[in-house]
């Protein structure tokens, strides 16, 4: 039981850390890392609750999210790299294209 509650706590902390990174950092790479943090904390929660309810479905879900996350980070990273190469953009302050 302690392991379960411990993991829930760890997940909570890492989620908050991820959010904090996303809010505070300006470089695209750091924001992506923050997003990964939040994602993996959710995965951890999945596993913890699956253990708590002794139900394997949560663990299966983790496998799925991991694959999707891998793809997502590949796309995100390539966008970040391309933005830097083409427009020399490192900070999100320079991203003003959303408003014309």
């Amino acid at each position, binding site marked *: 039981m302690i392991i379960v509650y411990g993991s829930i706590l760890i997940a909570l902390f890492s989620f908050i850390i991820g959010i904090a990174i*996303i*809010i505070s950092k*300006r470089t695209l790479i750091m924001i992506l890392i923050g997003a990964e943090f939040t994602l993996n904390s959710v995965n951890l929660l999945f596993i913890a609750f699956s253990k708590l309810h002794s139900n394997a479905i949560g663990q299966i879900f983790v496998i799925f999210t991991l694959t999707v996350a891998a793809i997502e980070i590949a796309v995100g990273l390539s966008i970040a790299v391309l933005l830097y190469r083409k427009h020399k953009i490192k900070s*999100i302050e320079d*991203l*003003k*294209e*959303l*408003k*014309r």
Partner: protein
Amino acid sequence: MIFILLFPVLSSLILILFGRYLNKKIVSLFSPISILIPFIIGIMNFDKAGDNIIYHIYRWISIGNINIEFALKWDHLSAAMVLMVTGVSFLIHVYSIGYMAEDKSYPRFFAYMNLFTFFMLVLVLSSNIIMMFVGWEGVGLCSYLLIGFWFEKESAAKAGMKAFIVNRIGDLGFLIGIFWILYVVRSADFIKINSFVSSGLMPVATATIIGLLLFAGATGKSAQIPLYVWLPDAMEGPTPVSALIHAATMVTAGVYMIVRLNGIYSLTPTASMVVAVVGVWTAFYAATIALTQTDIKKVLAYSTISQIGYMVFAAGIGAYGAAIFHLIMHAFFKALLFLGAGSVIHAMGGIQDMRKMGGLKKYMPTTFYTFLIAGLAISGVPGFAGFFSKDEILANSYFMNHRILWIIGIMTALLTALYIFRLIFMTFYGEPRMDKEVQYHIHESPKTMTIPLIILAVLSTIGGYISLPEFISKHSLWKSYMDKIIVFKKEILFTHTTEINLTLLSSFIAILGIFIAWYLYVKNTGLPDKLSNKFKFFHKLSYDKYYIDEIYEFVFINPVVYGSEGIYQWFDIAVIDGIVNGSGKFSLYSGNLLSYFQSGFLKDYIYHIITGAILILTIFVLGL
């Protein structure tokens, strides 16, 4: 039995998908054999046809208590049609090997031909009227594809479109007729329809309307007045196509449909009379046009319209057996005529104008003699196929007291002999009128082309003996064969002396027609020009096909074209485009307006998302 359908469609699919990778030899072996197999299956099962077998394949549509089966009907009518379709189709496939040898789209041609044969088999084998409609439309599609086979030529592409659109008009009536039958009978099955009719449940007025609506479809497919205009233009396609689709099989589908639903037509004298009058009128009318045409294939096209007119006439007066008999005999000799014409065109290097031919007899003897047999058969010279079949139609009309129609029929027989022998004399006799270059290249066609000609010539000679006139043999083979599929049998009294006189009369008429043709085009070659100068008005009327195409253009096509142009101008551009552009502009402006609430910085959005999430979560957790 399902294999009858399977082989042509599989072969067609393979040729469409992989045809371009296949060797020409494989294609030319593969495609005819896939038609030969159904023919053999048909012959093997021929004796079973008397049992009216239904082969269920699967339940196709099921709405309420109307069930439409995908089933094959094997009775005397469909068996005869299947043998005719596959047999003639096989011969024409073999012929095409030689005729199309130099064409670059060789596999495509055979793919379409196989597909056509498949749909034709669906049409004649169907056990219900919906499935028949599938075949009916399928053959229309293949006809379109094959008329426009040389689509690089604009006239061919246009002719294909014309055939398709004119058929659509007739098919609209056909479809409404089908729906009406479904509504009244609550079934599409031919057996159910016929038993419904024979039990007297169908009111005569309903039968009349249904009969006329279905006949509208038949006028389109079988090229009758007023929808025949597509058939002469359809000659743009390759000649084997004209032989198979526009002479032997597809265009007779309308006659087949009337005979298949003979119960409905027997019930209604009005609709039957319309059918008969349209038929005999078409027969006469098309024959007068065929008299003056100079394109060898156009003459044959109008001849086909005229002969189908005979069949429709027979079906209209209730001589269903005679109609199908003439249909099959016509398939033999008209396919032969077209293939012979194809052989001539092949030798002439693509020239179709008869004024540039002449004297071909000594260059291509096989083509000439087979063509001559077909000519004798179509004009009704005693002993040949057309004599028996045409005579039976005329005798039936005489004994059923349709005397006026009978007289027109006899006159048409005279014109038939005249125009077909005009064609033969202009093409094969007299002095060669072509250029020296062309004349040098004239040659007899290859074996693959002449052998089908010979087989068809044999069939056009002996085919007629399955139905001898009553005064020769008491029990006509064909009559007892066809009696099985007729719902309302009626006995007509044939008096033998009168019948013999009629036979003598029609033989005399045929020989008279040939004699006139001989006198005009061999003996006294200057006379036709003099005559046409003297009767300039009639000659021009016939030569320009009574200006029907121009009248249709003026009355129907132009109003549609200019009307649509007008609608396009004020409705499409003003209203439809206005709505579409307006909705686009609306979102553009509203988006512009809303963008004042946006900062455009990524950071702000993240803040908003997170605060929003936290807000929702707190509300949720605190249970507010």
